[in-house]
C-alpha cells in the first residue's frame, strides 16, 4: 500500500497513520462536492448570462497571473540573497518577508489603505492620475495580491536555494561560468522546481484573496470586481445560486492550475 515493493511489516501501524489522512481527504472532498451538488442547470444559465460574472472571471485571472509573475520576479532575487548571504539586518529582513503570511489579511488591507493616506502614498496614488492609480482601481488589486503572493513565493523559493549546496555554484565558476551564467545555468535550473512551486502557491493563495482587496479596491461591478468579491456581492443580494456557480468555477480553475503546474515540476514542494 505505502511501501511499494517492500514487504509490509506491521500493517496496522500504517493503517492507523492513514486514518487522519483519510478523514481530512473526506472532509475536503465532501465540502467541495457539496458546492457542485447544490448547483442547478438553471443557476448555471443565470450566472453565465451575466456579463458582470465574466468580467470578474477575466479580471481575477489577469490580476492573479500578473501578481504571481511579479511575485516570482521579486522572489527569485530576494530568496537568493536571503539564502546565500548573511548581512546586517538579515534576521529582520527575513521576518519582515514573512509578515504578510502571518498578518490577518484585513489588517494588511488596512495598512495599505493607511499608506495611501500618507503624503508619499497620496502622491503615488494620485500624483500622476487624478482619479487614482491604486485605491479603488484594478492596480490596487494587483498591489495587494503582490504583497501577499510575494511573501509566499519568497518563502518557498528561498527554501529551494537553501537546499542547494553552494558548492555547485563554485564548481560552475571554476568551469568558466561567470556569476550571471552560474545563476542562470546552475542556480535557477536547479531551483526550478521550487520556483514553480513558489508560483503555484503564490497563485493559489492570491486567487481567493478577498478581505484586503475589498478594502483597497472595493467591489465596483465591471471595474474592480473579482471572483471572491462576486461571491460576496451575490450572497449579499440573495443570489446564492449564482454565488455557488462562481464558487464552483473558482474550485475548478484552482484545481486545473494546480494540476498543470504540478505536472510542470513543482511536485516536491507543493502544499
Amino acid at each position, binding site marked *: 500500500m505505502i511501501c511499494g515493493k517492500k514487504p509490509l511489516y506491521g500493517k496496522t501501524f500504517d493503517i492507523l497513520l492513514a486514518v487522519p489522512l483519510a478523514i481530512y481527504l473526506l472532509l475536503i472532498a465532501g465540502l467541495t462536492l457539496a458546492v457542485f451538488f447544490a448547483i442547478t442547470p438553471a443557476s448555471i444559465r443565470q450566472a453565465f448570462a451575466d456579463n458582470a460574472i465574466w468580467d470578474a472571471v477575466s479580471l481575477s485571472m489577469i490580476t492573479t497571473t500578473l501578481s504571481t509573475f511579479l511575485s516570482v520576479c521579486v522572489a527569485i532575487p530576494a530568496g537568493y540573497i536571503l539564502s546565500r548571504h548573511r548581512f546586517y539586518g538579515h534576521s529582520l529582513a527575513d521576518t519582515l518577508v514573512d509578515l504578510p503570511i502571518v498578518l490577518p489579511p484585513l489588517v494588511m488591507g488596512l495598512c495599505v489603505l493607511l499608506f495611501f493616506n500618507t503624503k508619499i502614498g497620496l502622491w503615488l496614488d494620485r500624483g500622476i492620475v487624478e482619479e487614482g492609480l491604486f485605491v479603488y482601481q484594478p492596480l490596487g488589486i494587483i498591489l495587494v495580491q503582490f504583497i501577499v503572493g510575494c511573501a509566499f513565493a519568497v518563502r518557498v523559493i528561498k527554501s529551494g536555494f537553501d537546499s542547494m*549546496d553552494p*558548492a*555547485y555554484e*563554485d*564548481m*560552475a*565558476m*571554476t*568551469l*568558466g*561560468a*561567470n556569476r550571471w*551564467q552560474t545563476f542562470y*545555468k*546552475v542556480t535557477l*535550473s*536547479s531551483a*526550478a522546481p521550487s520556483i514553480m512551486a513558489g508560483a503555484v502557491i503564490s497563485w493559489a493563495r492570491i486567487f481567493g484573496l478577498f478581505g484586503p482587496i475589498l478594502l483597497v479596491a472595493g467591489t465596483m461591478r465591471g471595474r474592480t470586481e473579482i471572483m471572491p468579491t462576486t461571491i460576496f456581492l451575490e450572497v449579499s443580494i440573495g443570489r446564492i445560486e449564482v454565488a455557488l456557480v462562481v464558487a464552483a468555477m473558482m474550485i475548478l480553475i484552482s484545481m486545473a492550475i494546480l494540476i498543470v503546474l504540478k505536472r510542470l515540476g513543482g511536485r516536491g514542494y507543493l502544499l
Partner: protein
Amino acid sequence: MSNEVGLENISFSIGSFKMQDLSLDVRKGEYFVLTGHNGSGKTIIIKIITGIYRPDSGVVRLGGEIVNDIPPWKRNIGYVPQEGLLFFNRSVRDNIRFGLEVRKVDESSVVERVDRVAELLNITHLMDRPVTGLSGGERQRVALARALAFEPRVLLLDEPVSAIDENSRDELCRELRRIQRALGITVLHVAHAQREIDLVADRCGRIEAGRMQRVDVISGNP
C-alpha cells in the same frame, strides 16, 4: 622547469582554522600530490588556487601571473572535488559540455572535444545517461572529463578517489597518471593514502595545521 602554480606566503583564516605564510610551487607539467591530516588545510589551498577563496595575504600565481584579483571563471583551472559535484539535472554529455558552452566555443569544436575527452576517460558508453545512476568511479571519471574538456592549464584534484571503492582506486590513479602524461598537464592532487602518492606523484608536499612541512621527490613513477 618554470612554475605553473605558485603560492607565496599565503595567510588565510576561516572559523577556527588558520593558515600562515604557506608557500608552494608546482612545476609546469609535473604531478604534485599534497597530503596531510584532515583539517590541515589541503582543500583550502585548492580553493585558494581556484579563486573560490581569497587569501587574507600572500600572492597566488598561475603561469607566473599574479591572479589574486582574477575571478575563478577567468583562471582556466580544471577542478575535480571529492564528491564530483556533477550537475544532477544534466546528462553526462551535458555535464562535460558545460565548460565549453559557457566559453561559447562553436558547436563543432564542442562535439569534437567532448568526444575526445570521453574517449580518453573510457566513458563513451555513459554519455547519454543521467548522472544520478552512475557509480562513484563513473562519477569521478565524468567529473574529470568535465574538468579536462576545456583544456585547462592546471588540473586540481581534491581527493578524487576517496569516494570510490578500494578496488577501483588503483585503477583510477593509474589512469590519472596516464592522462597527465598524455596531455602534459600540470596536476595538483590532494591525497590521503600513501598508495595514491606512490602511484601518481612526481613530488609530494606534506601540510600540517596550515603550514607546509616538507616536499619530497617521489621516484619510480612513469
